[in-house]
């Protein structure tokens, strides 16, 4: 298998996309049935000797590396949650439900789709990879997603 890139740089979350059609890119690897990845549950797989977290969210499939950019914590063991948006004092605005993972070591939050630190509390990002569903199967590739947002 192809070695994972050292640190793919992303510019934003992958947008929720319809299931792709057309021929499957050759570098995609079948990693299981869609039903093997319950909605909202982060499932880990071993790929090329490294642990990858796969999760199906309301927005689509996400794939992340298992290393927190803060101090290397095993982020795939973290809580999948939402977060609080910037707000006026004493007002909580919960959003991104199921689209955020919280590192089990220090609680830093990252967007599952982009790997970006929520609230910009740290510059580094969690690695994110290509993952998609086709005809009931889930396919993975150790490269950055094709649809980074422009933010």
């Amino acid at each position, binding site marked *: 298998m192809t070695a994972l890139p050292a640190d793919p740089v992303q510019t934003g979350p992958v947008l929720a996309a319809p299931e792709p059609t057309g021929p499957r890119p050759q570098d995609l690897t079948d990693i299981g049935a869609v039903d093997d990845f319950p909605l909202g549950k982060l499932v880990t797989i071993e790929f090329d000797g490294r642990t990858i977290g796969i999760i199906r969210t309301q927005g689509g499939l996400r794939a992340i590396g298992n290393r927190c950019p803060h101090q290397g914590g095993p982020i795939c063991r973290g809580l999948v949650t939402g*977060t609080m948006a910037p707000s006026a*004092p004493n007002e909580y605005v919960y959003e991104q439900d199921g689209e955020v993972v919280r590192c089990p070591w220090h609680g*830093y939050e990252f967007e599952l789709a982009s790997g970006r630190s929520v609230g910009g*509390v740290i510059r580094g990002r969690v690695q994110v990879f290509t993952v998609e569903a086709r005809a009931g199967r889930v396919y993975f590739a150790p490269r950055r997603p094709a649809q980074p947002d422009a933010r």
Partner: protein
Amino acid sequence: MIVDYDRHVAVSDYADLFAHMSQSWRKHFERDEFVGSVRDAAAHIRMTDRFGDDVLEGSAPGPGIDLSLALPHQGLTINGWADQVAAKAFIEALNSHSEQVWADGRARRAAILVTPHDPAWSARVIRERAAAPQFAAVALPLSATLMGAELFDPIYAAAVECGLPLVVHFSGVEGRYLGAPPLSGGVHRTAFARAALMPQLAESQIASLCFSGALAKHPTLRVLFSGFGLAWLPSLAWRLDREWRTFRHDVPWVVRPPSEYVFEQVWLSTWPIREAEADWETLFAGNKAQTRIVYGSHDPIDGDTPADLRAALGHAADRVLGRADVLPAAMTGAGA
């Protein structure tokens, strides 16, 4: 321009304040437990005879100082008064004394005393007195409610509206009397033990101002913590940022690292400068915290002169002594 941000003033006889009170309040206060309490009250916070004996009337800037900010410290002790109604009459008399005696609107300015126990009244006092050139700041005694509480928004809004910074200085009764904030761990037996621990209060208030969102809500609010020392600021800023990175979702109104708010809106005065003498280069060189340090002599109570600063900080002293950005620019000539 050298500004002394921490010049203490006091009356030596409380009867001097009667001229600034209505006849009814004067009659209320005409009793030994008040008039005779200047020395007794000082004894609650005094550590040496020097404190009690040096209750100086004067507010003239020391040698080489261009402008001094007078802090009538007797008024700060109302944070421990049981009678908060009388406390307001007392601090208003001190404010009038500042306007007529201690401040001249030029080289001698004073802080308007207010009370944390009645923010609406305090806001009115700020707006009524701010136009007088004698006043250059608002002195807010500490209460047992942390400064980040929305309760204090009227005071902050009035200070911002009038362009005046807040000055926070301990009164000395903290950690002892109900109404004033406690010190952590418990009640110490001695005034000197409490004095050694007063920096706790400033650290706690700064954390509250940051995490409550008060500094974000009032982005032009300026807060000077005076008399609390300074060596602890870099480590506090680092700790605030570290916790924010983990718990940002609990304070989503804090949209930047807390230290950024501190380094824009909070200052510390230098007294006692010798606590930082050995560590200045280590702690402050290359750290934004150094931009928050302004000169405060703490005179006439065991004060530091500009020469003391130069002896302690070397070349860095001149940057500290020249920092005048806490007070309104019109008073210091900043930006002119």
